[in-house]
C-alpha cells in the first residue's frame, strides 16, 4: 500500500531511489544534496535497500564509479550539486557518450564565486550540452516520481541516455511537504529488474567479452555523436510513454515535457521551471481573479528540449487567445548574453517565426531571479506580469531590453 508521508525533497528522492532498487550507490557529500545520501546509507545499513554503498573521495569518482558499475550491467545511483556537478563535468560527457543509463539527482545550487551554497539553476544549465536528459521537479512528490521514471527512461533500449533529476536547492530539497510513497510491488511492476538483461548495450559480457567506452577517429566519432543526438531527440516519445504509464498506474504526474497551467486562453504567458512554478501558479490564480488572462508553461524537460510542444502550446490551433507577451523566469545567467532557458526558448521561437512569418512573434522578456538563493516573492512575480502587459502594449518605439535582473535596481 502506498503511504502518505511528510518528507523533504531530498527524503522523497531517497525514497524514490530505494523503491527503484539500485545495486550500487556512490556519492560525495555536498550541501544541499547531503540528506539524500545520508538517508540512502541508513537504508543500506538497515538492509531496507540491498545495494553496495561506496564512500568515494570526490564527485568525479562518484560518477566514474557508477559508470563502472553500469558497465557491469547493474542499476546505479548518485547525487550531487553545484561545484560537485562541475567537478563531474568531464564524466557527464563521458557517461552520456558511453550511453550508460545512469540516474543522478542534482540539488540545484549556485556556482562560486562568490561562494554561495544556496539554490539557483546555474549548475545544471551550464551543463545543458553534456548529453544528459535534464528534468526539473516542482514538488517533493514529483521528485520521488521522477527518480522512478528516470530509470525507466534511461534504461529504455531506445534511449540509453543518463538522466539528471534536478531539485531546487533548499526551496525544494529542504522543504517538507506531503508525499505519497508508493508501495514496492507497484514500483517493481513498473520498472524493469535492476540487473540489465544479458547483451544490454554498453555492458560487459564474460561469455562474449566487450570493449566499451572506446575511442573513435573523426569519421566514426561523428557517427556516434549523430546517433547520440538523434536518440536524445527521439527520447521525447519514450519519456511521454513512461510519464503516461506512470500516471495510469500511480494516478498522478504527466506525460508532457511541458506542463501548461491556465494557458490555453492566456495573453501573458510565463515560462519557468522547477519549484518556483508553484508560486507563479498562486499569482496566476490571484491575477485571474482580477480578470487578467495570464498563464504558465512549466518546462519539465530541458533536454530533450520540447521545441514543438512549446510552439504548439504558444501558437497552436487549439489556443483560445493569441499570446501577447512571453516571460521567461529563470535562476541562472549565461554571462554576456541571457538566461540559459531564454536562449533555449528563443531558439525554438525562431523556428516558429520562420514558419509563421510575416506575422511575427510576441515580445519576450527574460527575468533573471533567485540567483544565489534570493527569495522570489509573489509581489515580484506580479511585477513581472506587469512588465509583460507593458511589453504587449508597446507601440514599437521603446527599445526592447529583454533581460531583467529582478530586484536589482541598477539593471533597470
Amino acid at each position: 500500500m502506498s503511504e502518505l508521508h511528510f518528507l523533504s525533497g531530498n527524503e522523497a528522492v531517497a525514497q524514490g531511489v530505494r523503491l527503484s532498487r539500485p545495486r550500487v550507490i556512490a556519492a560525495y557529500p555536498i550541501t544541499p544534496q547531503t540528506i539524500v545520501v545520508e538517508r540512502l546509507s541508513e537504508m543500506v545499513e538497515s538492509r531496507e535497500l540491498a545495494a553496495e554503498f561506496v564512500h568515494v573521495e570526490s564527485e568525479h569518482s562518484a560518477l566514474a564509479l557508477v559508470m563502472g558499475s553500469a558497465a557491469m550491467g547493474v542499476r546505479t545511483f548518485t547525487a550531487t550539486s553545484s561545484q560537485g556537478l562541475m567537478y563531474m563535468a568531464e564524466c557527464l560527457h563521458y557517461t552520456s557518450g558511453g550511453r550508460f543509463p545512469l540516474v543522478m539527482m542534482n540539488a540545484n545550487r549556485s556556482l562560486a564565486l562568490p561562494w554561495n551554497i544556496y539554490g539557483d539553476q546555474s549548475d545544471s544549465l551550464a551543463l545543458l550540452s553534456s548529453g544528459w536528459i535534464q528534468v526539473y521537479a516542482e514538488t517533493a512528490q514529483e521528485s520521488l516520481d521522477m527518480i522512478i521514471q528516470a530509470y525507466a527512461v534511461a534504461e529504455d533500449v531506445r534511449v540509453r541516455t543518463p538522466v539528471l533529476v534536478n531539485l531546487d536547492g533548499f526551496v525544494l530539497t529542504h522543504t517538507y511537504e506531503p508525499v505519497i510513497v508508493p508501495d514496492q510491488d507497484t514500483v517493481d511492476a513498473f520498472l524493469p529488474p535492476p540487473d540489465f538483461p544479458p547483451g544490454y548495450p554498453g555492458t560487459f559480457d564474460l561469455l562474449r567479452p566487450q570493449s566499451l567506452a572506446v575511442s573513435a577517429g573523426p569519421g566514426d566519432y561523428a557517427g556516434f555523436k549523430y546517433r547520440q543526438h538523434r536518440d536524445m531527440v527521439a527520447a521525447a516519445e519514450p519519456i511521454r510513454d513512461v510519464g503516461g504509464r506512470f500516471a495510469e498506474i500511480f494516478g498522478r504526474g504527466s506525460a508532457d515535457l511541458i506542463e501548461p497551467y491556465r494557458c490555453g486562453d492566456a495573453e501573458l504567458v510565463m515560462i519557468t521551471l522547477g519549484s518556483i512554478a508553484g508560486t507563479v501558479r498562486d499569482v496566476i490564480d490571484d491575477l485571474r481573479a482580477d480578470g487578467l488572462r495570464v498563464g504558465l508553461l512549466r518546462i519539465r524537460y530541458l533536454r530533450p528540449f520540447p521545441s514543438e510542444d512549446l510552439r504548439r502550446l504558444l501558437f497552436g490551433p487549439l489556443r483560445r487567445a493569441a499570446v501577447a507577451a512571453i516571460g521567461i523566469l529563470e535562476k541562472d545567467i549565461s554571462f554576456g548574453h541571457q538566461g540559459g532557458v531564454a536562449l533555449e526558448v528563443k531558439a525554438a521561437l525562431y523556428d516558429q517565426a520562420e514558419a509563421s512569418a510575416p506575422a511575427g512573434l510576441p515580445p519576450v522578456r527574460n527575468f533573471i531571479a533567485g540567483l544565489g538563493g534570493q527569495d522570489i516573492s509573489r509581489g515580484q512575480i506580479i511585477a513581472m506580469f506587469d512588465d509583460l502587459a507593458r511589453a504587449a502594449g508597446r507601440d514599437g518605439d521603446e527599445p526592447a531590453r529583454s533581460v531583467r535582473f529582478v530586484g536589482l535596481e541598477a539593471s533597470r
Partner: protein
Amino acid sequence: MTISLKNLSAEEYFLGHKACGGCGGSLVVRWTLKVLGERSYVVMPAGCMSAVGFIYPQMALGVNAMISPFAATGAVLSGIAAAVRAKGLRDVHVVGFAGDGGTADIGLQSLSGAFDRKERIIYICYDNEAYMNTGIQRSGATPWGARTTTSPGGFRPSSPAPKKDLVRIAAAHGVPFAATASVGYPTDFLRKVEIAGSIDGPSFLHVYAPCPTGWACESDATIRLGKSVVDTGLWPLVEWRDGAARLNRDPEAFVPLADYLAMQGRFKTLRPEEISAMERVRDGAWKSLRAWVRESSAG
C-alpha cells in the same frame, strides 16, 4: 600453480595494438592478462595503452575492457568491483593499467580512495616516466635529469631526488600487497601478478616500462633497459605484503649508472658530476629502503 615461461598461456589478450615498436607498457598488459586470464575486467584511463588498444573499429584487448576518464581509474575499478560484489561474481579479476601520469599525478586521488576502501582490485602502473601519449611531457615520475618536451634541457629540480615512491604510498594505505617490477625481470613480474590475483583486497604493481620513442633509445633496448635499471639500483625490486617489506634483489654493489644512461638520448645532457650526484641519491634511497624493510619485518 606458479606461472613461469614454461606454462605461460599461449592465449594473446593484447594483440594488434598500435603501440610503438618495442613498447614496454604493452608488454606489461600482455603478460598480466596471460596470468589473469579471460575472466578479467580491464580499465585503462586515457593514456598510451587505451589510445593504442581501442581505436574503433580495431579492438586489441581480448577481454572485457573499457577506457576510464584520466583521473578515475581507481574509481571505475571500484565501480566494477562493487558490481562484482552486488552480483556475487566469483573468480574474476578487476585490473587497471595506468601510466605514471595517470597514477602518480592525476589519478592519485581516486587510487587513494580505492586503496582506502580496500577494494578487491589490481592496479598496475606501467611507468614510462613521462606523459608519452601526449608527446613526452614531464610527469610526477620523470627521473632527475631526463629530457622531455616540457623539460627540454633535462628535468632538474633544485637537487637530485628519488622518484615519487608509489609503493610506499600504497603501503601507507595499508594495502595487502604492493610491489615494484620491471620488464627486465619477467619471472619476478609474473609471480607478482599471480600474487596480486590471489589477494582479497587492493594490490598495486609499479612496473618499469621503457618507451623507446620517449626515451630516445633503440626499439630493441626495452628488455636490456629493464634489466639494467634494476642492476644499477635505480629501480629496486621490492614487495610489501601483509605489513612487511621485502627486497627481491638485494645486490651488494650496483652497476655504474653511466651504461644505463648512455643507452638513452633523454639523459644526454647529464654531466659526469651530476651522474655522481644521482648515484649518491640512489645510495641514500637504498639506505632508506633497507631501513624500511628491516623495520617493517622486525615488527
